[in-house]
């Protein structure tokens, strides 16, 4: 009951934690390398969502200061900027990973971890 009370109103943390667990579970339990990569991407996305959720202000607006406006609540722009960089990193990682997968498939004709172990030994 305490846990439920503590989690109420913290939907974003529940959500990101769940996504991270889903991602890690996918990486650990799936045999297929592409599915493992998908798990990794889910986990990275969860972290990006966590950062973005930090910037939210109730009733907040786009952080552009205009003349003649006072008492406006702004969203924090910094997490957005950071995550723009993190998304680029994530895309680059996915690109390198797919390139590696293509090479692995061309060499061994499979992307199943069990089969690959048999073929490399």
């Amino acid at each position, binding site marked *: 009951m305490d846990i439920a009370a503590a989690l109420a109103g913290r939907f974003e943390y529940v959500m990101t934690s769940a996504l991270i667990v889903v991602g890690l579970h996918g990486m650990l339990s799936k045999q297929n390398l592409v599915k493992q990569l998908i798990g990794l991407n889910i986990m*990275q996305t969860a972290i990006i969502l966590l*950062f973005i959720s*930090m910037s939210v202000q109730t009733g907040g607006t786009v952080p552009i200061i205009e003349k003649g406006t006072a008492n406006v609540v702004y969203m924090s722009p910094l997490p957005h900027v*950071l995550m723009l960089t993190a998304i680029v990193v994530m895309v680059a990682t996915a690109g*390198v990973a797919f390139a*590696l*997968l293509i*090479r*692995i498939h061309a*060499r061994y004709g499979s992307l199943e971890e069990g089969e690959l172990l048999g073929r490399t030994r």
Partner: protein
Amino acid sequence: MTTSLVFAGLVLSPIFGALLIVVLALNNARRAQILALLSLAISLGAAAAGIEACRDGGVLSYSYAGWTAPIGIEARLDGIAAALAMLIAALATGVCLYAGRSLRAELPRDIPAFYAMSLLLVAALQGMTTTADLFNLYVFLEISSLSAYALIAIGGGAASLASFRYLLIGTVGASFYLLGVAFLFALTGSLNAHEIATILQRTPPSAALNAGLALLTVGLGLKMAVFPMHGWLPDAYTYAPSATSALIGGVMTKVSALALLRVLYAVFAPGQAELLPAVTTVLGILGAAGIVFGSVMALAQRDLKRLLAYSSIAHLGYIAVGISLGNATALAGAVFHMLAHGLAKATLFLVAGGVVYRFGRRNLDSLAGLHRTMPLSTAAFVVASLSMIGIPPTAGFFSKWYLMIGCLEAGRTDLFVLVVASTLLSAWYFLRLFEAIFFVEPPKPRTRDELPTAMLLPVGAAAAAILALGLGNQFAIGELIEPTPLLQALGQLVAR
């Protein structure tokens, strides 16, 4: 002016070198190598200037694009960072010189891409050692990792698979690190390491602070391959081209270790994180377990490069133990061990690459009679092995010396005994290598067939550097490592 030139030389010169290679030399290995060596020469000069500026506790600080911290990103060079920057620049220069002949024998294609990727790796590692911004560190960490994945995968076949595994584990590590940064950012509203440390001093202990600390430690621990987070390392080092193994095995894990040291002692130690003692204790236990595990696994290997990879896990254990103890002596020992092990392991991988170059194989049997075939390389191999075991006057002896004094200073007799006993273990597997070289008769008589000069020169220079670092330990520790503000804040060194 000089300050900006140092950082430009360290970080920007290799980046531009990599771009130039992609534009001008993607189908000309010779030209790519010359461009790589030129930009690394600038990097070396900058590292030397950095060491000169950071003697006796000097610190270089530079704000990118003129925006001062905490708004902008701060680059910061202290004595420890300068020493590591020198190691990175020097090893990369040696490896790029060596790679010309070695890669032509090992790789069917993509040789110019190797130089571009190495330069990118060097730039990212220099960025990691010099940045004072936690998010900037994440970006450099990922750049270094991405170029490392490519450098490993160039080896083809099993290397691609090893590289993919490394990519999965490495990205999880970097993601944990980023998650830890998210907690710190939420608590302090800053990303600058020094500002976070200041704010944490007046931040009450909280679960979020503990979670941030744990996530940062696990993330960097994965990148540093602390036991039991080492799973990616043996395959990656074994199947990569020899030049890659030397470069990555020499410097990459050390830079993550330095980042971990900074996070624990420059960011969290002044604050009130309740979990910090537990984290360092666990790190010490894992380091100790890694020393034993790595050494025992090294004993069981028949593949020379795999043996060296497991020995790396053991030696990263020493660094982890040094970091976990947290007194100035042990930290100085850990940093000095990064330098000593980086040089020695790179030398060993370079000679292993020479064995592959000459005989096309890398199992221990192919070492038989190596001293007759390649006497000079074998001499370098012996010097590096002695440093790995810890025999004076090589650098490895002094790093272990400071680590042992650090153990005693912290009152950890158990770790002291372990470090001493593990020296016997590493002596055991290196003596096995000596046996395979000197006392096993080769199946057919070997004639003298030394490595070509371009490969022998880096090997010899690295071996000479191991001796020079050992004999010059008073300079490296007394004038460069010990006076850095980070170590000064932790108290006096006992061992001097």
